[in-house]
């Protein structure tokens, strides 16, 4: 049994344990959930240690027949890209559980249900990155919407039911397009001697260009909705605004990465020719996302919407890096996914604490927090700096790689992308100024600073952001061989280094 399977089963086991606990044992339930998520994180650490970086291809593979009639296997494996995303997941889940220790109390349903949903979601998040069978990937990709739907709708704020429904409908619609494309790919593999859903075998198929274009679009639109890329983003702000802090972290930090991950793993690998055809369009969409997200972020009055729109901008960067079709850009994009995960986590968690203390999510209701709650204010500030990619924080490294990788092939796009950095400084610093500095607004005087639990939660996130900002090598070492391999398969060679570089 592969270590990946162990990782998937552990949270399920936790769910089962919680299912047998009485509904009123809130404390025990939380403790069990937290311990299980810590164990998962530890096991994933062992996996990372045993991972042989430098070798492309899948490791820790396991394959068992699942639905023989359609040649569907339970097949898992991890390459560099999948590994870092799995690690991102397993590290964020315990942080989220600890950060939102009392988040579930005000929900429509019990605390027990909340943590069961959370752990089921963790299983699926690990599974979705580990799947090497496209059908398995699809099933998890779709099924994980259900726990998120209930997490937003049952434990969120404000217009939570409507936001949850919108999120679900958008995603399911994308998923159905992908289903059609998935079936098409499968039938082609059947016609070319042996139906299969194995990602490696499918990437060897010879598909004619028009068909490839359609299949590519089926997959791509599903991922673009998930990511979310402009103009498929409209579900995100509502969902982020209504979800609890913890759910938002997982939604934007991990789940949306499935979209960009899917673009790399499926769109580029399975349909290299179509990828080339659509690259210019996608680059333009990515640039629009970067600028659009940034401009709208500047104008947001709600702190959670602000973070959501900054994420749209950041997902634009990730998509730009992926479709720059250089190994540098791809490595940068993958690293960006990790960093965005952590920096969004820091932002959403600190924002959630601010909102909870103040009882309002309007930025204008805060003000002068620096004086009242220095630790909280500093945490939010650092998170913000990481969102604007300040040198010394990890997001700088990835943003730089993305832009350099893009510049070698699409200089104009890179220049427009750089504008996004300027705008990022604007939206972050404006928000920081309005909420942290200046006069202490009435109603904020008695706000309490972070307690020990909250400090313990936010510390590792900030530590990761700073550590990887100075020493990104361990992560890049894992990512680089894979992204080179992906690019080679897609038939894109890095542009020759021009003289003077």
């Amino acid at each position, binding site marked *: 049994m592969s270590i990946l399977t162990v990782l998937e089963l552990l949270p399920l086991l936790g769910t089962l344990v919680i299912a047998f606990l009485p509904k009123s044992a809130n404390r025990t339930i939380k403790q069990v959930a937290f311990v299980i998520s810590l164990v998962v994180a530890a096991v994933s650490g062992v996996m990372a240690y045993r991972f042989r970086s430098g070798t492309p291809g899948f490791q820790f593979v396991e394959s068992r027949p*699942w*639905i*023989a*009639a*359609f040649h569907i296997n339970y097949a898992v494996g991890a390459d560099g890209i999948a590994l870092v995303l799995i690690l991102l997941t397993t590290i964020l889940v315990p942080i989220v559980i600890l950060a939102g220790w009392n988040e579930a109390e005000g929900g*429509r*349903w019990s605390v027990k249900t909340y943590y069961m949903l959370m752990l089921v979601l963790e299983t699926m998040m690990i599974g979705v990155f580990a799947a090497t069978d496209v059908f398995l990937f*699809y*099933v*998890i990709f*779709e*099924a994980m919407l*259900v726990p998120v739907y*209930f997490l937003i*709708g*049952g434990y969120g704020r404000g217009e*939570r*039911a409507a936001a*949850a*429904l919108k999120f*679900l*409908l958008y995603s*399911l*619609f994308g998923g*159905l*397009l992908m*289903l*059609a494309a998935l*079936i*098409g790919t*499968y*039938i082609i593999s*059947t016609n070319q001697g042996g139906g299969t859903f194995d990602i490696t075998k499918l990437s060897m198929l010879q598909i004619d260009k028009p068909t490839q274009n359609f299949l590519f679009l089926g997959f791509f639109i599903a991922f673009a909705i998930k990511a979310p890329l402009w103009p498929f983003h409209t579900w995100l702000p509502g969902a982020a605004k209504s979800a609890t802090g913890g759910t938002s972290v997982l939604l934007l930090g991990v789940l949306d990465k499935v979209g960009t991950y899917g673009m790399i793993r499926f769109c580029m690998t399975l349909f290299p020719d179509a990828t080339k055809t659509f690259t210019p369009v996608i680059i333009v969409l990515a640039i629009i996302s970067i600028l659009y997200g940034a401009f709208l972020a500047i104008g947001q009055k709600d702190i959670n919407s602000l973070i959501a729109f900054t994420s749209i901008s950041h997902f634009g960067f990730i998509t730009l890096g992926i479709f720059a079709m250089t190994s540098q850009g791809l490595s940068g994009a993958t690293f960006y996914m990790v960093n965005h995960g952590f920096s969004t986590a820091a932002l959403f968690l600190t924002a959630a604490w601010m909102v909870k203390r103040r009882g309002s999510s309007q930025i204008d209701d805060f003000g002068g927090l620096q004086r009242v709650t220095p630790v909280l204010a500093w945490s939010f500030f650092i998170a913000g700096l990481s969102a604007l990619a300040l040198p010394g924080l990890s997001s700088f490294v990835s943003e730089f790689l993305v832009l350099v990788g893009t510049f070698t092939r699409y200089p104009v796009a890179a220049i427009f992308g750089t504008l996004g950095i300027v705008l990022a400084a604007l939206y972050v610093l404006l928000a920081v100024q309005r909420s942290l500095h200046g006069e202490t607004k009435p109603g904020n005087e008695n706000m309490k600073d972070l307690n020990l639990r909250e400090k313990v939660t936010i510390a590792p996130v900030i530590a990761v952001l700073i550590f990887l900002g100075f020493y990104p090598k361990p992560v890049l070492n894992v990512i680089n061989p894979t992204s080179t391999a992906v690019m080679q398969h897609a038939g894109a060679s890095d542009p020759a280094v021009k003289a003077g570089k």
Partner: protein
Amino acid sequence: MSTLATPILNYALLAPILIVLGGALLGVVVEAFVGKVYRAPIQLAIALASVVIAFIQLWRIRGESSTSAAIASVSIDGAGIFMQGTILVLAFIGLLFIADTDNFTAQASAIPGSAEEGASIAAGRQQTEIFPLTLFAISGMMLFPIATDLITLFVALEVLSLPLYLMAGLSRRRRLLSQEAALKYFLLGAFSSAFFLMGAAFLYGYSGSLNLNDIATAVSGSGDNSIFLLIGIAFLSVGLLFKVGAAPFHQWTPDVYQGAPTPITGFMAACTKVAAFGATLRIFYVGLDAAQWSWRPVITGIAMLTMIGGAIAAMAQRDIKRTLAYSSITHAGFLLVGVVALNKSGLSASLFYLVAYGFATLGAFGIITLVRDSAGEVTDLNRWVGLGKRSPVVATAFSFFLLSFGGVPLTAGFIGKFSIFSAAYESGNIAIVVVGVLASAIALFFYLRVVLMLFFAEPKDDVVSVVIPSFFTRIAITICFAMTVVLGVYPSLVLNMTETFGTFLR
């Protein structure tokens, strides 16, 4: 003067149908002679026993195949046996729901609201003709998918339909609505039967035979597009499409589904669909395969219309039974996709879909019987709002059935949809896959809307409550739920069977 040859019948192969028929006749006798106290349990026992014994016999002959079991009028083959088995299993569950005789009128012959009716309710005189009627319907359903000549098909169609017309009118509450449904169903059903018969006559005129295999030979041999053939196919299709509830012949479905007693609606929706699609598949795959140029484009169009139309109409419904009726129309469209795929995968996909759909349908209608106020079942969707708060288990189960209808992964419905679309794609009909995907998206919307109502809204109506299910109902819902989960997570259980059984004998 020629002597009439005695037909040679292979009783072992026909036994499953005969057992059910025998049970039905026994039920009639019981109804006449047994006192009211013992009648209901005895009837139920007979009905369940005949279904189980028939299934055991079916299991014993599962490997057989023969075209001469009853001269040449039935074909015992893999697909036929599989469909008979499916009907029996679904009927067994249906009977468990029907066992709750509280849903049925005490005395069907009494005028609704009359003193006579009141007296029989007060005296506890519950008639139980529902059980033999169900068994008669089951026997017709079992004959329908294996019948190979047009007359036998017609007889089977009538044997399965006539009891259903009656059963639709037997509701205890809102009897006028129920009787209206029955009458509507009867009139339209009779009309469509006439079409079917007319089609059979034209096909006979064209080929000189009533046997599907002979018709197939005639079609492939002559290659001439005789007007008789075209009219025959058209009329025959109208009859079949009416029974499966495909647009534009679906008009009866919402009214009948709404008016009929809910357990009957579930039984009808699940089992009739299997039988009707069984016959449809056989007629088109075996009899009219060679004439596909004439019917395939038309049926493709009808499938598209049915999928999209059903899904759009379902969105506007305010009554849960009508919603599910339109949803069943949408599913008829998906199943027609399997019919026009016209390949081996299409057949086995349709078989799987029927199983998955049948369990979810029975389960969903079973749950509807539980949601009541003082005047009986509550089917107004607005009054279901917030049910998840008061009865989380029931609401969860119901939502799960809806998600399966919607084809969300890890439910049986998803695998069904996947295999149907794969088969259609394999046959090269990509347009229908695209339309199917769109229809699924629309359909998902109204399934999710119901889930939303159940869970994410505050209850407004305090009178509505979920009654404690009877023992049988509880078992039946549990089986449906378990099957929907199992077939979603480990579909190989049935998929392997549909692969092996999915062949028609020609």
